[in-house]
């Protein structure tokens, strides 16, 4: 009989024991995180409650004054409405189109491999290139869109200077630009589904739609949520496309919150006011994301 005490295997020294030296492993990241994320964020929150002007300097705390000014600023309220509308237009499009593309291209065909690359390709372009391309598409007289619809009998078409169509036009550009990411996430999720499940479904006489509805979609539920959350966070931060295509117009109908922040902070140099607007954007994104996570978890297993 062997003695239990003598056969006990000791854990290698240092594992599972708190040691100050182990902190060194996380220190590099901690420093970067503290300096580049935590500190600016706290500084921004502090700034939101100050009267801070780049020319006039710091004139002390003003409490909620900046927020009160925001609430009575029609341009800001318009920007909030524009941004929310933009999110509502783009996020469902990213989820549905991304999923549709992934379903269509999730196979071994050579054609699909080419198309996957094509659809992802535009994501690598910078916002300047993308908007340059689309301004040519949207050009009222000589643009691609005009060339396409004029023969059909449509009159002069000028989306970007139209109050109703400017924001949807930017949404189309955005979806075209970065549909590759959701598509890729969905493709990865689809490839995780075991082939045996589809074979079992085929033997269970499940048709195409039944299989999509009962096997595929439930299997990628989490990815749908991930894509929706990522896109909400990304699209609330709309800026470059709007600035470069419409400049926020016409009549402020396409000005997003980030452009408002940029203009308040870097054009008008009102840092406190701009910071307050940033905090509102942060709160909106937080609420939208938490709402999605809550909705996703409620229907989860």
């Amino acid at each position, binding site marked *: 009989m062997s003695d239990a005490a003598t056969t006990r295997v000791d854990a290698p020294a240092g594992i599972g024991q708190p040691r100050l030296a182990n902190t060194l492993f996380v220190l590099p990241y901690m420093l970067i995180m503290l300096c580049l994320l935590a500190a600016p964020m706290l500084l921004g929150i502090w700034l939101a409650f100050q009267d801070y002007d780049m020319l006039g300097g710091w004139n002390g705390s003003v409490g909620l004054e900046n927020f009160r000014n925001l609430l009575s600023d029609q341009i800001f309220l318009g920007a909030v409405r524009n941004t929310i509308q933009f999110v509502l237009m783009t996020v469902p499009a990213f989820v549905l189109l991304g999923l549709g593309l992934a379903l269509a291209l999730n196979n071994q065909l050579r054609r699909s491999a080419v198309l996957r690359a094509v659809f992802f390709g535009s994501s690598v372009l910078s916002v300047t290139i993308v908007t340059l391309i689309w301004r040519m598409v949207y050009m009222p007289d000589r643009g691609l869109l005009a060339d396409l619809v004029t023969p059909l009998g449509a009159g002069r078409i000028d989306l970007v200077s139209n109050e109703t169509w400017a924001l949807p036009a930017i949404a189309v550009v955005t979806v075209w630009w970065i549909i590759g990411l959701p598509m890729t996430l969905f493709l990865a999720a689809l490839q995780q589904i075991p082939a045996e499940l589809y074979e*079992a479904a085929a033997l269970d*006489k499940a048709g195409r739609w039944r299989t999509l509805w009962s096997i595929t979609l439930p299997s990628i539920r989490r990815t749908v949520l991930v894509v929706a959350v990522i896109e909400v966070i990304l699209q609330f931060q709309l800026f470059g496309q709007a600035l470069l295509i419409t400049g926020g117009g016409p009549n402020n109908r396409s000005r997003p919150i980030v452009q408002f922040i940029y203009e308040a902070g870097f054009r008008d140099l009102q840092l406190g006011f701009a910071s307050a607007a940033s905090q509102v954007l942060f709160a909106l994104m937080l609420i939208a994301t938490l709402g999605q996570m809550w909705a996703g978890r409620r229907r989860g297993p």
Partner: protein
Amino acid sequence: MSELSLRNVSKRFGAVEVIRDLSLEVPSGEFVVFLGPSGCGKSTLLRMIAGLEALGGGEIHLGGTRIDTVPPGDRGVAMVFQHYALYPHMTVRQNMAFGLRNIGMAAAEAAGKVAEAAEMLEITALLERKPGQLSGGQRQRVAIGRAIVKQPKAFLFDEPLSNLDAALRGRTRAELSRLHQRMQATMVFVTHDQVEAMTMATRVVVMNRGRIEQIGTPMEVYQHPRTRFVAGFVGTPAMNFLPVAAVEEVAGRALVRLPDGSSVATSLPIGVMPGGALELGVRAENVVPGSGAAARVDVIERLGERTLVHGVLRDGSTLIYDEPGDVAISIGDTVQLSIDAAAAHLFDSEGRAIHA
């Protein structure tokens, strides 16, 4: 009448021919086991019956109708997959009812069938759980339940026991046999485990390299292997094979001489002996210790109820033979071995068994 009929079925993947012109008739109510090493085409054949793999050529008929041209769901077969393939987001009840709902069966009727099958498999208590909350054995039962509720003309099993631990595998074997007795259904079972084939099959189809080597009851296949491959594949330990040094005639019968000089007098007429190299095959239980050729004990494997002894003959070839579990023997001992000629097999240079 034959329930399942494979006619000149073939299949190739690129340049590799996995099934070669294979024909097979399975009578109604039979438990057929496709047995063979991995890569022999047995799973491909099963998947072709299920409709998950297209045929390269030939036809498959089930219950009098041709099925190889219709989609899997319309073939009247149900399959139990190796990894069960239960729908992870559905409860056990929904898993079992899925196929029934898809053929438009009323909810109440489907529920009745599910309840009935669940009772038979003793999984009624698990009906509201999801597959992730079940053990391997329980998942196995659900997968079988999902097949049973469909009342298929044929059940297809694709190595369904390979993921279970040894004890559970033994129990499930017995349960499947019982299930077959009870349902009298046609079952096709694929495995590489000859114990599963021996214990459950009414008939075994031994396959090798896309071809059927032998079809027969488990005992036929065990006692009268038609080829050297079947002889070597079926049975534990594997059959001993010894090269034949010379064939002599004694009173019209063939007497084969082994390389170590000992001889085995067969009952085969000398006339049926082909030319070319021959091999003698003999199972461990047909090697009789006590007299005959001298052998040195090399390895002793004690299995409890029996002991397998590896004896090395003078010429260096090894004979594995049976001793009782508690036999007093040690490595290095010298033993005398003789071969029960009536139970020995002779194979020609092509691997075919030689019969009178």
